[in-house]
């Protein structure tokens, strides 16, 4: 027998949803900025940096890409305190997101750098630019432009993955949904609404990233 | 009664009209060479004949079958109209022999053994006996194009369309492909070719068609047209003073 769906029972909790949604948005935006910065540094290390930095970065990337985000999160939140590093739920969630996106974007941006024609580097060197100047002024922007679609997809994947931070009680959208369904026992309706909100977030984020891409890159 | 009859065919991409009312008759055994500048509509016209492109008005019939009227099944039509492409378009995951056998076995449901015998004899005909098990990547451009011709012949077409089949080839490989086509012509195969090989058009063609700005600008016996072009455009195109 099918129970009747009842979305009315969700209305009293709209503010809980709103707070969770806001948290997820803020977490995504801040960790994206930090994660891409980390990724750019990582990509530099892999291509222009000293050998040891490249090797270290490679290990970091492989470890992160080959373990689940939830395990990384648990390691940071539950495991690190054993070493004396105590983090709040929100800080741990933020760090886990940054570390995760950092690894993926390192790899993506590195691919973008390798697709920049060698002649451009040689042209820069011929103009007496230093290796750093070449990276900063000649390589970086075209590299990111090369892989911007892949980078955008990854940012959305990381945003959706952030649902897991609810498991350490960071108060995101999923945490809000869990809270509400524990009160009104309308699990299915609550998660349908939450899933819909995530879908809207993904669509909105994609539009935002496309807009940013258009603004930054010529005829991108 | 012509085998391929094209009547006042018009086609446009958006606002740009690429075929502005083309009519052309091809009889059985004819070798029609279509020449003209790029963008004159010659390739588009050829691709309309086997339904790879649609057209907006006019009519095309091949052996009594109307093309693009929505009534004739394009697959039925294509069993009788072979096509060879500029870029060969061999199937890279199949050997030369398998390329040739594919349509006969899949479409016509020929027995494997029978199709294989046909493929082997066709390969021999195009001068590639022994290349049955070679993959396209192991063949030169000229060899690939000859396999592509054999592949089209395996369906025993009533007419063969050739779309600039030597344009993607290195100069020294052009002749081996043209020789195969010439032999087909001498055996009575009906051919419609879009080509840049003027000497071939003159020596092998039974009819020359000069297309200019989406129209048939001039047509007639190749030797006459090459000797005495009637319009300044053709004269300029083939590089003689009118």
């Amino acid at each position, binding site marked *: 027998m099918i129970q009747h769906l009842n979305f009315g029972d969700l209305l009293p909790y709209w503010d809980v949803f709103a707070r969770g949604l806001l948290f997820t948005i803020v977490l995504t935006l801040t960790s994206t900025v930090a994660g891409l910065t980390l990724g750019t540094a990582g990509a530099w290390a892999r291509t222009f940096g000293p050998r040891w930095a490249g090797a270290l970065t490679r290990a970091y990337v492989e470890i992160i890409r080959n373990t689940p*985000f939830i395990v990384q999160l648990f390691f940071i939140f539950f495991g690190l305190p054993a070493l004396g590093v105590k983090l709040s739920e929100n800080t741990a969630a933020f760090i886990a997101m940054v570390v995760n996106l950092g690894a993926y974007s390192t790899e993506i941006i590195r691919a973008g750098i390798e697709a920049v024609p060698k002649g451009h580097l040689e042209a820069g060197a011929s103009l007496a630019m230093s290796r750093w100047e070449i990276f900063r002024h000649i390589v970086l922007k075209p590299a990111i432009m090369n892989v911007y679609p892949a980078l955008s997809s990854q940012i959305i994947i990381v945003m959706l*993955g952030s649902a897991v931070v609810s498991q350490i009680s960071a108060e995101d959208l999923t945490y809000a949904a869990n809270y509400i369904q524990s009160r009104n026992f309308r699990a299915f309706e609550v998660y349908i609404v939450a899933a819909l909100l995530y*879908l809207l977030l993904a669509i909105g984020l994609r539009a935002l990233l496309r807009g940013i891409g258009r603004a930054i890159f010529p005829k991108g | 009664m012509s085998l391929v009859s094209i009547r006042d065919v018009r086609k446009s991409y958006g606002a740009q009209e690429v075929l502005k009312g083309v009519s052309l008759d091809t009889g059985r055994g004819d070798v029609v060479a279509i020449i003209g500048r790029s963008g004159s509509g010659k390739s588009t016209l050829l691709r309309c004949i086997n339904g790879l492109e649609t057209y907006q008005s006019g009519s095309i019939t091949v052996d009594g079958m109307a093309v693009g009227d929505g009534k004739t099944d394009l697959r039925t039509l294509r069993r009788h109209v072979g096509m060879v492409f500029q870029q060969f*378009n*061999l199937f890279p995951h199949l050997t030369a022999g398998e390329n040739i056998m594919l349509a006969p076995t899949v479409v016509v449901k020929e027995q494997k053994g029978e199709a294989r015998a046909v493929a082997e004899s066709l390969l021999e005909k195009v001068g590639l006996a022994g290349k049955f098990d070679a993959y396209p990547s192991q063949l030169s451009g000229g060899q690939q194009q000859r396999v592509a011709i054999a592949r089209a012949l395996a369906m025993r077409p009533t007419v063969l369309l050739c779309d600039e089949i030597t344009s993607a080839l290195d100069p020294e490989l052009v002749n081996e492909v043209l020789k195969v086509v010439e032999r087909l012509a001498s055996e009575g195969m009906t051919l419609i070719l879009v080509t840049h090989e003027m000497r071939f058009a003159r020596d092998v063609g039974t009819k020359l068609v000069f297309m200019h700005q989406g129209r048939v600008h001039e047509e007639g016996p190749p030797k006459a047209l090459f000797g005495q072009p009637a319009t300044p455009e053709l004269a300029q195109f083939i590089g003689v003073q009118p």
Partner: protein
Amino acid sequence: MSDFSFWIILQNLLLATRWTILLSLIAFVSGGIVGLLVLLARVSHGRVLRILSLGYIEVFQGTPLLMQLFLFFFGVALFGIEVSPWVAAWLALTLWTSAFLAEIWRGCVESIPKGQWEASESLALSYGEQMRHVILPQALRIAVAPTVGFSVQVVKGTALASIIGFVELTKAGTMLNNVTFRPFLVYTLVALIYFALCFPLSWYSKRLEGRLNVAR
């Protein structure tokens, strides 16, 4: 109970790893089968099929896997059917996997040059025959590397089944942590085991990709 030895922890984690592997395999295979159907709909000539499959992919790629798990776990119960975490995880992972694989494979199908379609069309092959004999065999070759690569995502995705109570590697880690109070050791081991499962797949995928590029 902090006298749980290292070996007992490791042994329990490895036992639970069997379930991670099993769930990964089953979800990957069934996700591949469903994904193939979604792909065929996505590249078909039918407008309705194309739009429906696009919507399917958008929804499953645009919502968190965790939400999908919750919806299967709690949603199917609405129909009065008791769902075990195992079944819910299998269903959710299957659909999630199918959406991603369908999209990966669509990219492979669309990377086949137009000339291949035209040549096979000119040989009077039907759409189905073109797909079966010309397009899919070539797309398959290109698809192997990214498909193997995505299997890593499936293995990692199974970790979320722990949240609805399916005892696999991550859940076992959480349970062991609760009794041993040695989170650093437990989660390091859990991470290492995942790494041991995923890294070979990543490595193999990259190697296949490299080989394909050389072949071209």
